[in-house]
């Protein structure tokens, strides 16, 4: 079965057959893929070379932590690929961006207000957790479309704090 895996702007064509081998970018490789101790950790022997990766999946993105590096991979089969291309769908997230609390904590400051334009990297919220002041930054340019919390609020993990358009 054929898949297209994309990291940033690099795409790899990976063809899996059930005979313990795959074809990656035309290279034929023997593979033994083994999940360890019921954990999302995989030991992979690729032509004998030993790799270990821990993997988590968020929406369409597979996060692979490999040899101390994190890779965000989008995997599609040919059908999905064609579908996306015909509908000109983009991989990057579009439309509204929702800032959710990455961990429980207390909102100590909100340096922006509704309607304000922000650039990628600007601080949106300062959240205190584990005795540290953590700056939550804008992932892209945009305009603040909504602020759902106020300074002093205690928030739970994944609680929506603010939205950007």
């Amino acid at each position: 079965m054929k898949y297209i895996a994309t990291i940033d702007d690099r795409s790899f064509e990976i063809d899996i057959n059930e005979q313990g081998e795959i074809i990656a970018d035309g290279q034929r490789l023997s593979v033994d893929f083994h999940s360890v101790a019921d954990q999302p950790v995989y030991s992979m022997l690729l032509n004998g070379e030993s790799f270990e990766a821990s993997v988590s999946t968020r929406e369409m993105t597979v996060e692979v932590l490999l040899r101390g590096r994190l890779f965000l991979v989008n995997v599609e089969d040919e059908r999905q690929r064609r579908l996306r291309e015909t509908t000109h769908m983009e991989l990057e997230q579009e439309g509204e961006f929702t800032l959710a609390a990455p961990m429980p904590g207390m909102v100590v400051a909100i340096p922006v207000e509704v309607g304000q334009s922000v650039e990628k990297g600007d601080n949106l919220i300062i959240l205190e957790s584990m005795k540290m002041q953590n700056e939550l930054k804008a992932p892209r340019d945009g305009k603040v479309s909504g602020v759902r919390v106020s300074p002093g609020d205690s928030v739970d993990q994944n609680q929506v704090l603010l939205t950007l358009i």
Partner: protein
Amino acid sequence: MFTKVLIANRGEIAVRIIRACRELGIETVAIYSDVDRAALHVRQANEAYLLGPAPSRDSYLRGDKIIEIAKAAGAGAIHPGYGFLAERDDFAEAVQDAGLVFIGPRPSAIAAMGDKGVARATVAAAGVPIVPGTEGIGDLSDEDLLAVANEIGFPLLIKATAGGGGKGMREAASLDEMPGLIKSARREAEAAFGNGNVYLEKLLLDARHIEIQVIADSHGNTIHLADRECSIQRRHQKLLEEAPSPFVDEPLRQKMGELACRAAEAVDYLNAGTIEFLVDKDRNFYFLEMNTRLQVEHPITEMVTGVDIVKEQIRVARGRKLRNSQEDITLNGWAIECRINAEDPYNNFLPSTGQLTSVIAPSGPGVRVDTGVYAGFTITPHYDSLISKLICWGETRGEAILRMRRALDEFRILGVRTNIPFHQKLLASPRFMVGQFDTRFVEERFKFEENDEEQERLEIIAAVVATLVTHRATQEAAQIIRQSERDTSNWKWVGRWERMQR
């Protein structure tokens, strides 16, 4: 002489202290908050008592309750560890008033060094050079601070007078950003130490943060256990320490050591403590502050001197003489500590919480791990993010670095994100390997996410892994393959499967 000790702390340091007590045949009493019922220190202590709800102010900062518990349990002494109540002279005082031994310095010494303003004045009087900054008492108003700021000159540092560990510390490049920074510094200081006072200090550039471990007994002996290099910091949080410092030669070591002892003696210091110095590129050094407690990074000193600092703390508190004179202290090899924090280096080092599903710690020759967590334990947002200290010893700095690299590669922690990848990158960076760095290195010169050919090579590997995981998920979802219980945890290809049946 006390035979039972209450440990007024949690996490790895509580476990460390319990270990020292056990090896001395001393009984241990643990305390815990609601979320720490299953914590390692509770499991390992001889006794354990509930303090209260998770927030520190309701549990680990409840000095009154802790003393109550100590007396009820018949403990003869209290070890505060670091953080929490460790540098609160009022707590040390209260412990003594309750007829218990405080395993640490005298309250007067904690107070003198605790107010960083007073501390600077005291050691300066004793002839120890200090960093230019605000003088005398530490409870300055915002107005006072703004006034002296210009005299000191920019860039400067706003620091918590009750501080330590970089909490409540801010850098100011100009006067107009001072008010906001003072405000946030006070807020963080208040949260961390229950005291919002701050003071100002000139910001030395290209400086290293090098500290000297000292220990004094009640018989008038004060010795130092040489230096620790602590310049590898991010937002004033130490991330990696080594002993000795690659920057310090023997003459400088002796000079710093002597002045460190003098600074300690200036406040009639007792038990273990650390003098932090800033050292500029011309090897001039300036007193920064004294941490009147056991230091997070004490193990690297233990590994190069052979002195068990925590056991020595307890002996000194029992009124014993130091086991070693200054002449006995010699450095053997090199030690490095990496602080393993539950932080996501790929997401601005935000804290990461949750249940640890798997922990495989490195081991083998020259490797030590101090930790308070285990697989199944849950990291909560209530306390700091340090979950483990990885310490490696080597005959040389080179061997210690290579050993640390392999130990980091072996470390497996699942359930939360950790800063292990940061350390792996750091230990591979040429500037670190040759020992050329200052306190700004991590933030200004070190690239965490750089691209190299290894990156290129691993991308396709990662792509393959992601594809196989996706493929497998699809197959399982579609239930094309019926799998035995064993196989769900162990996906095999038909080919491989057949091979195994032979």
